[in-house]
């Protein structure tokens, strides 16, 4: 199988994750209650940073696999590990379009979780094995976990009035 076939099969494997994201994006475009300019700005910000965060999560997945002795030999092996990139972009864009302040809360908490996760992971790597490789593996895995946990917690925590909102209602508007 050549490189293009591998990339094609890799994208096909991420398709199940992409379908709900595409649906969310479509719904966002058709039923947002916010002014268009603010919606666009936060959607772009959310999409861009969501993709970046997704890339870091992908790196964490790769490092976690290497811990278990499984290595990426060629780009086609990435497969489902690439899913966090479009998923992060879609969720970030959707959140930005729907509610910029919820997005900002998610970004703030996500950044804090990312930094704490990297630090904790580095410490764990240093204590458990002590090699430079173990420390950097901890940075990647811990950072990925912290980033996801923080981002989700930040999105859930925002309630519009500064208090904690125990539920998150995702409104998906479809044209039909």
């Amino acid at each position, binding site marked *: 199988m050549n490189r293009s076939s591998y990339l094609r099969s890799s994208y096909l494997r991420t398709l199940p994750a992409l379908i709900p994201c595409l649906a969310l994006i479509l719904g966002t475009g058709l039923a947002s209650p916010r002014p268009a300019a603010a919606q666009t700005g936060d959607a772009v910000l959310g999409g861009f940073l969501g993709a970046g965060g997704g890339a870091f999560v992908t*790196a964490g997945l*790769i490092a976690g696999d290497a811990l278990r002795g499984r290595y990426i030999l060629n780009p086609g092996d990435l497969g489902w590990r690439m899913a966090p990139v479009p998923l992060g972009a879609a969720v970030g864009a959707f959140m930005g379009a729907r509610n910029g302040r919820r997005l900002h809360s998610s970004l703030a908490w996500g950044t804090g979780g990312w930094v704490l996760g990297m630090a904790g992971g580095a410490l764990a790597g240093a204590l458990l094995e002590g090699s*430079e490789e173990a420390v*950097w593996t901890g940075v990647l895995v811990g950072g990925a976990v912290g980033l996801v946990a923080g981002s989700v917690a930040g999105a859930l925590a925002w309630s519009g009035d500064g208090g904690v909102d125990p539920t998150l209602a995702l409104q998906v508007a479809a044209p039909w």
Partner: protein
Amino acid sequence: MIYLAGDAGDVPREDSPLLQALRRDVEAWSAALPPRVPVVLLFLGDNVYPEGVRPRPSRSFPADSARLAGQVWAGSGPAARTHGTRVVFVPGNHDWGNRGGAEGRARLENEARLLEEMGDDGRITLEPTPGELGPALLDLSPAVRIAFLDTHAWLLEERDAVRAAALAELERLLSDTHAATDAAPLIVAAHHPLVSAGPHGARRGWGPLAWLHRAGAMLQDLNSAPYRELRRSMRDVFRRTGAPLIWAAGHDHVLQVHRSEGTDLPRWSLGSGSGSKVSGVGDADPDDALLWAAGRPGYMRVIFLTDGGARLEVMTRVGKEASFVPTFAVTMR
């Protein structure tokens, strides 16, 4: 006389000043030396980019075979054929199609079959046999003996017994070399180096990809767990039996010369991996004893002298000239 060129499989010969210069060089020495003096051209892996030799019905097969044919051409001029100059290819990770198992081995077998067809009665070969770790021995005594390893197969091999058997055989070769006072020096030729100041060895850069390199999460980097195990195993053998004179490898797309005074590394570790691609040189580990390095196209030649020593010359292209000239030279003892 041994030529070392690695990672040369990215361009056909028409687009490669290096292959053209290498052919002129090989022809000149093959014509000048008597037949009893061996001339060997070693291609140190990644002989066919990007994914080895794909199956014959594939649309990519003509391009793959052209990349291999260019390297064969470099060692197949009239003088080389008359002299009996050997051309030996070692497998690299790209020759395995950057994969393992039966699929990767099939790519390697395609390459071996193609070399057999280009053939010339066994003058041009792939060593070791596809799927085997090695060592496969080419005995050119009294000048030199060359042991070929497939280090990509080694990195992927999960069976301890298979690795142990290969190590035991290498240990036996090294013991024979060091036990006899008049034994020919042993050169190990493999794709992966034991030390490197290139991108696979040196820590450089910033961002998630650089961090993956630092974490040892990329199999082809010297700090991945399987690669560290390969290096550790080799160094243990060298401590017990004595190290080979030279470990010749490609993999990193730089030219580099390491000289070690220790007992656990080869006296000379030569990196000749800029046959068709070039990378930058990073900060080498101080323990790796880097003597010289450059990130530019080139190849090496090792001339064995009648007094038992050898002379290394690194041939690189200066400016836009087509000729490759000796840029670094050292006497190897």
